[in-house]
């Protein structure tokens, strides 16, 4: 996935001089995960560069650039370090277009690696998608494969709205997939049915798609037919795809890594109720993180959502 995102950047930097890219260690170093590797060499220090350590400034100056003719793609080094920029995102980036009735646009991408299960120290394992999805005026995108990452990143850079782009760090290098070299894009705001099925709908995104796929193998062995939906975009959420599937299966299991309360899981359950109440044959179920801080490495095995636990909940829901 690192490669695919890097390739998306390469394409956009090459074809559009207004694209610039910056953040902590993204230039010389090429990013702590090497996502921007080689780009400064190729496109120069004016277009791909390191900044001082100040996330509010990275996002705030990015907004200024976006309002004056550029398309900044800014990196925040980790999920846990996006919060110093929270004020700029919620108070400025997300509103500029609305506040000025469209006179100014804010075409910028705010990207960061997110999620746990990499044995990291504190503040390096967070899944803040619900916080960002609750903010009107931004789009929140999470890819689950290298192919999707490239196509969605190209769309994100080309969208005239600001986009939060969350990269599932634990599968940065885990999935090998052939990704076409040429430019292509995947629309923001559309979910994807990864697998059709009839008994239970499983909805997930990002790194947990893989875990779900493993759980689904177990479920199918147990005779349960599962439909798997990859959200791809958290907001604007693709109600149609979600609801069609739930109407078909009548049962839904939502899988994500963040704390479950006030989360994307909650919202999906709300949608299931609003749009498919009469089709529901079992209570929608979320399989998510606890309402705790993500523990350090030794505690992660409890907190993280593994295939076992997903299967356990799929089975319970199917049998309900």
């Amino acid at each position, binding site marked *: 996935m690192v490669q695919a995102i890097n390739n998306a950047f390469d394409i956009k930097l090459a074809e559009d001089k207004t694209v*610039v890219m910056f953040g902590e260690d993204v230039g010389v170093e090429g990013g702590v995960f090497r996502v921007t590797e080689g780009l400064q060499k190729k496109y120069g220090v*004016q277009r791909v560069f390191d*900044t*001082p350590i*100040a996330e*509010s*400034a990275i*996002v*705030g*100056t*990015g*907004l*200024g*650039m*976006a*309002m*004056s*003719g*550029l398309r*900044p793609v800014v990196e925040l080094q980790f999920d846990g370090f996006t919060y110093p920029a929270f*004020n*700029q995102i919620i*108070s*400025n980036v997300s509103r500029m*277009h*609305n*506040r*000025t*009735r*469209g*006179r*100014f*646009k804010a075409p910028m991408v705010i990207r960061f690696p997110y999620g746990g299960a990499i044995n990291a120290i504190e503040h390096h394992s967070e899944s803040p998608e619900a916080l960002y999805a609750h903010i*009107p*005026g931004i*789009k929140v995108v999470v890819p689950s494969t290298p192919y999707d990452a490239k196509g969605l990143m190209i769309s994100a850079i080309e*969208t*005239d*709205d600001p986009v939060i782009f969350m990269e599932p760090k634990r599968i940065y290098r885990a999935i090998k997939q052939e990704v076409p070299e040429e430019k292509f894009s995947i629309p923001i*705001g559309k979910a994807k049915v990864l697998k059709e099925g009839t008994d239970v709908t499983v909805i997930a995104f990002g790194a947990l798609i893989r875990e779900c796929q493993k759980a689904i193998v177990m479920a199918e062995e147990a005779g349960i037919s599962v439909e798997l939906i990859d959200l791809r975009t958290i*907001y*604007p*959420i693709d*109600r*149609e795809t979600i609801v069609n599937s739930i109407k078909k299966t009548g049962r839904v299991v939502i899988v994500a890594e963040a704390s479950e309360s006030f989360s994307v899981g909650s919202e999906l359950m709300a949608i299931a109720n609003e749009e498919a109440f009469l089709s529901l044959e079992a209570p929608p179920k979320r399989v998510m993180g606890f309402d705790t801080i993500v523990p350090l490495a030794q505690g992660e095995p409890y907190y993280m959502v593994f295939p076992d636990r997903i299967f356990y909940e799929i089975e319970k829901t199917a049998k309900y």
Partner: protein
Amino acid sequence: MIFNDFNPLEDKTFRIIDNEGKVIDKARMPELDQETILNAYKSMLFARTADQMAVSYQRQGRMYTYPPILGQEAIQVAAGMIIREQDWLVPAFREMALMLAKGVSLKEIFLYYLGNEEGSNFAKANHVLPICVPIGSQYLHATGIGYSVKYQQKDEVVFPFIGDGGTSEGDFSEALNFAAVWEAPVVFTIQNNQYAISVPVKSQTRSINLAVKAVGFGMPGIKVDGNDFFAMYVAYKEALEHARAGKGPVLIEAYTYRKGAHTTSDDPSKYRTREEEKSWEKTDPLARLKKYMDSQGIVLENEEELIQSYKEEVDKQFLEAENFRPYDLEDVFNYMYVEMPDDLKRQKANYEQYLSWKEKRK
């Protein structure tokens, strides 16, 4: 370069005329013809008229709130004469006179305080950001624009504004730091009007002045008498040249006094004395410039009539704002995204259903 001559570390203040309008720094007095000076005074007078009327509209219950600029006119009119069409104005929320100079209409400003976002949709102003309420955050936008115009090799300079209180926000420091590192063409202004709502500047910081904060970021800083039109004019002129010459950002502390209330819902008598207010009276920027004009025989003819015509103009604009087309449901939804997402369409449609139910019930 005045930036070298007035070291904020020694707490020097750049000043050209004294409170009596007498030129005390002849060498630095700008060469301005009589008409230009007269026009500057008129702009200050217009701003003051509009400002006072805004306060009274609010008192009449015709406007929700308003932050007066009373006493800060010289800074803004001087800046307005230097800032070019292509330059960027990044206001805080107390820059009415400067926004006018940049082509924002009074009608738009009023519309904003009448509670309509169209008041930030400036029809004729080029490169003017909307006011920014979250204190300090605008400084970062300015630095970003500074990077942007430099990258695009445009001859544009960025002029962000902030208050004395705003210098305490982390964003203030981050913006100065980034601008310095990027050598961005940004002229930062602090309108030090001595108060942040009720909090005096001495409770805001222990630095000897605010200009000195530039030192920590390796950029020039200068403290200027903000009620001295000529000093402000020269400061902005040199700052613009500095930035255009590719020498990076500068910081200007415009030392002034907020003669009015913080906003129309504030009562300064709770936190400052009449004596203090009076002691600042003699520094009033209009009075000082007027005294200078008097001494030079620059005559403002028919001042009463002029003010009367200003009042009529202001009132005309206010009425236009008051009679702006009614706010529509569309206006809530239309601008959240460049294209309205399905979720918003659904919410809007649901609301319309409710409205038609309500209609029927009547």
